[in-house]
């Protein structure tokens, strides 16, 4: 004699297992999403911090006027491309443009005085990569 109720129990179990599988799937999926999101954000923050720190170095020492061995932060006489490239090469940032005109990609600016007349200027540091 065939036990008809046995099949019903199996079907019910199957329907109970399905949401459980969906829960596991959703947990894995959302965890992966969160990890990916955090990783992307950390990378962007790291790039931004690098740009900020290299710009800070250039504005305080790298490009500044030096008199009797003393640096004058925020006072730049000329934009020495060699010094700029050296600083950015060391940081690992690529395609960086420094100038008084805003470039492409992620840009920050610093306020400086330029030339012997100490003219107030906005100096841009742009990575040339896609905007953060």
């Amino acid at each position, binding site marked *: 004699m065939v036990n008809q109720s046995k099949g019903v129990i199996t079907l019910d179990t199957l329907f*109970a297992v*399905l949401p459980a599988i969906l829960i596991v799937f*959703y947990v894995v999926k959302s965890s992966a999403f969160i990890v990916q999101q955090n990783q992307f954000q950390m990378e962007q923050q790291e790039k931004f911090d690098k740009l*900020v720190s290299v710009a800070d170095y250039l504005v305080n020492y790298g490009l500044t006027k030096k008199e009797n061995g003393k640096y004058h932060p*925020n006072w730049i006489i000329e934009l020495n491309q060699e010094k700029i490239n050296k600083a950015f090469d060391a940081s690992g940032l690529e395609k960086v443009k420094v100038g008084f005109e805003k470039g492409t990609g992620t840009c920050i600016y*610093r*306020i400086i*005085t330029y030339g012997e007349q100490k003219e107030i*200027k*906005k100096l841009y540091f742009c990575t040339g990569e896609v905007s953060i």
Partner: protein
Amino acid sequence: MKTLESIISLLVFVSIAIMLIPEPKELDYSVYKTQIANDIWRVFELRNNFVGFDKNKLNDDANKITELTSLCIEFEEEDVTSCIPETKTIQIRKMAIVDGNPKTITMRIGQNNQN
């Protein structure tokens, strides 16, 4: 019955999980903002605006910086303001010589969205 219970559990779990997913945070600009505030102070120093605390020169240079950056610069209690900031971004306190006496000055930097 078990199916119904499982589906309800799934719905509850999904709702909680959606609530727990963190909103993407914005970049941390705090260090950069401090650097900008110090830049502004340094530019005033370099242009000798603190020698005798010349308010006219300070106002002129503050206006020039506002023109360049859209940032409002305000010296608290010293009657120097380039524009009224809608949102206060940062403030720094430093020493300057005012009327021959050392005085701690508070400089506020804010954003004016209209500029």
